[in-house]
Structure formats: C-alpha cells, structure tokens
C-alpha cells in the first residue's frame, strides 16, 4: 500500500481563501435557508450553472422596437454584420492604455429580475466584481469580506495568441467549452449550440478585460453565429436603451446590448420562454419560470490596482 499512500502526497493544502469562500457559502445556506448563494461560479461547475443562469435571465423584451426613434441624428445599424463591424472598430479605436497584467477590472452592474412587464417587482440589486486582467482570478464581497476564486474557463492570453480572427476566437471558445463539458456534465456531444457560444462571448465581453484585437474579433464573430440578429432600442436595467445582438431559441430570448453611439457595452436583457428546473451540483434545485425576465446595466467599469478597490 505504500506506493499508493505516497502517490501525490505533496498535493498542496486548501488555501485560506478557498476555505473562507467555502465556509461563507455554507454560512449563507445556514443563515438564509432557501436563498441561492449569490456568487460567481467556479471553474468546475461553471459551465452548467452559467448556462442556466444566463438562460434563466434571458434577456428580452416583449414588444415592438422603435428604431432609435429618440435619436434622430443617429443612423440605425442596418444589420447584425454592421453592428459587429461598428462595435469591432470602436473596440480597436479605444484609446485606453492596456493595463498591467497584475491589475484588475472592477465592474459594477445593476441587476433586475422579475416577471415580464414588471421586471423589478422581485429583486433589484447591484453586483460588484473584480476580475484580474490575466483572467485567472475573480473577487467579490460577501458579508463584508472579499472572496476569491479562480476565474475564466477561457484564458484571455490564449484568445490573444496570434492570429486573432473571428473564426479563430470562435474555434478557441468552442474547444474550451467542449473541454469543460468533457470534464463535467458531458451533455454536449461534441456540439456547441449557438446559445452557449453567445453566452460565452457575452460573458467575456461583460466581465473580462480583453485586448482590443480580441474584443474586436469577438464582435465580428457574433454575426457569424447562427440565429444572431440585431434588435434596436432594447432597454437595460437602468432604463437606458441600446442596440443589441439578439438570439432567440427554445428556452430563452437574449440580448447583448451596446450603446448606439459609442458601441460600448451597456448591459443584458433576457426572458425565459419555457419553464426549466436546474439541479445544481450540490443537489439543490431551482426552477426558472417562463416569463422570468432578467436585466442588467453596466454602471461602472475601470481598471484598479487591487481587488476591492473602486477607483
């Protein structure tokens, strides 16, 4: 038995950060029975949970869209390819200097969830998050304490490896998703559905600092994904409206919304179209009803030196 006893004996012990995060999740469950602990999702469970939450908070907007009616000076984008191109050029022309790899992206979003027609009936809160520029860690405050965990399924440096092309970034994202699926749920059968691809890109654009060329390639890639169209005048959580990449599938209708003038990221809007119950890895279940609406709005985004800093 000695050979087995020695095998991987030098495995590192649990870090204090990981222990604190796990204990905090337990304490949340203890103190708020029934509450889904709000947290970014760890690598191993990330795919499944993200699919669910993004689908659950599927962006949406029932109703008619008036093409940028309150902005007569702006020519609306004619199609999704034009939206991709204009957003890509805005990303490429962004004069902001590149941050140091040791810095962090701070983001603050307003989140609304509720039912169609009454999106803020149920819940309205702000969500602050720090993501390291290298994509390896993210942090958030929970019960006044800064929590850390590993981050991106997709390594931003990997996406930035030349050549960076729209087809290339899609291929890299698909490979990462399939790799993740193979380690966990194994439910994709080698195919990455458009909604998953959309969600992954959505997540990268909204949560991760990306080199301008990578961000531009992602925007140019979106119109190439089957089913993605452009929708005008879609509201985000704080009432602003923008032009959106949109995707409707059996489960949900989702929008990734950009400012119609600057083409910077504004937020998301989604609606579930079908009831669905998800079982999380801990055995708990959560049902999202058809008609559940989720909106977000980007309130702040800036580069800071340390997690926990806001300016």
């Amino acid at each position: 038995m000695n050979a087995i006893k020695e095998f991987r004996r030098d495995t590192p012990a649990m870090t204090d950060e990981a222990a604190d995060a796990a204990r905090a999740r337990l304490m949340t469950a203890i103190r708020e029975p029934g509450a889904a602990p709000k947290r970014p999702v760890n690598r191993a469970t990330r795919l499944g949970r993200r699919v669910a939450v993004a689908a659950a908070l599927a962006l949406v907007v029932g109703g008619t869209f008036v093409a940028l009616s309150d902005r007569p000076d702006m020519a609306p984008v004619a199609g999704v390819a034009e939206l991709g191109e204009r957003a890509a050029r805005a990303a490429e022309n962004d004069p902001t200097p590149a941050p140091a790899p040791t810095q962090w992206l701070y983001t603050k979003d307003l989140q609304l969830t509720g039912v169609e027609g009454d999106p803020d009936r149920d819940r309205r809160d702000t969500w602050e998050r720090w993501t390291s520029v290298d994509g390896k860690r993210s942090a958030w405050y929970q019960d006044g304490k800064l929590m850390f965990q590993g981050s991106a399924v997709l390594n931003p440096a990997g996406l930035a490896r030349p050549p960076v092309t729209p087809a290339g970034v899609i291929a890299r994202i698909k490979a990462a998703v399939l790799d993740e699926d193979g380690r966990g749920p194994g439910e994709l059968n080698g195919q990455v559905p458009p909604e998953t691809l959309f969600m992954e890109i959505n997540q990268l654009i909204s949560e991760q600092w990306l080199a301008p060329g990578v961000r531009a390639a992602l925007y140019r890639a979106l119109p190439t994904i089957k089913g993605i169209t452009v929708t005008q005048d879609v509201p985000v959580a704080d009432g602003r409206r923008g032009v959106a990449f949109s995707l409707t599938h059996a489960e949900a209708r989702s929008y990734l919304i950009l400012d119609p003038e600057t083409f910077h990221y504004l937020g998301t809007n989604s609606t579930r179209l079908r009831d669905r119950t998800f079982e999380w890895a801990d055995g708990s279940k959560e049902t999202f009803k058809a008609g559940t609406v989720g909106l977000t709005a980007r309130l702040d985004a800036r580069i800071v030196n340390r997690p926990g800093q806001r300016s």
Partner: protein
Amino acid sequence: MSAELVEIDDGELIRRSTHDPELFAALFDRYARQIHLYAARRLGTQAADDIVAETFLAAFRRRGTYDTSFALARPWLYGIATTLIARHRCQEERLLRALGRTGVDPLPEALADTVTRRVTAQGRDRELAGALASLPRGDRDVLLLVAWEDLSYEEVARALDIPVGTVRSRLHRARKKARNVLGDEEL
C-alpha cells in the same frame, strides 16, 4: 470553536444543529481541509475548492437524515465528497492516464501557479497512475479511501453505502491490479 463544542462529538453536533443550524459550521472547521486534500489529490486543487463547498452544503441540507448515533461524521462527509468526485470521473481518469503516459502530472494547479508538483514522476508513479485510471470507479473509491484517508472497512461501507463484503472484494481486486503493475511490492 468554543471550548464546549470541542467536547461534542459530530453526531451530537449534527443533532443540535437541527435547532441551532450555525453549530453545523463546526463540522466544516473539523473536516474541510481533510476533504479538500482528498479531492485535490484526485482532481486538483481548483476542482477540490468546489467539491469541499458543495460537500458541506449538501451535508447541511441532508443533516436530518444523519444517524446521530454515529459519533464521527467523517465517513459520511467522505461519502458525499466521493459522490461529487464521481461527476468528474472522466477528468480524473484522463489526468491519471496523462501522468502514466508522460510522467508529468497534469493535475490542475493551485492558483499560486506553483509548478513544483509538475515534477517528472518516478516510473513507479507512472505505472500506478495507469493502473488507477483503469480501475472501475467503485474500486478506485474504496482503494483511495483506505490508502489515503485511513478509513476502516466499516467506515468505507458507510461512506459509500455498500456492504462491508463489497468493500473487501473491491479492495482485493484493486490491490491485485496495482500489484500486477508494480510487481511484488508490498501492497
């Protein structure tokens, strides 16, 4: 942990946590790091971070089903963790096969990016990795709970909810297989 809690066995702690749920946190303080090491040895530290958190969440939710006549909750917790690890079976086997093939352990690393673990394994570890990868999952669970975590046969039976006889036969099979690849070394 208060001095009083130190005196209380796990079964009593779980029983009292029915009315005072926060007591359950003491169980985390007693066992989280052991469970983490076990999961990390099988799947790497990142996956282990999740497995530990989910083990205690699941245990907390299921605490009403715990037979509080058992003073030690350790086997119960290892059982929950092993079930969660089973969801990563393909990854575990892939990692072991890669180690067997290349001699470099690809076990996902801690966030600190330490590379010290990625040392080239001795030939014996490579062979052992290959053998572990080829074991049926149930056999591997039993072998590792006994060899790494020092659980008794009865504790393994309770952890995995299988008869003690099955623990013995699985362990026998697993040892035999390991012995075949490692030669006549004491197992």
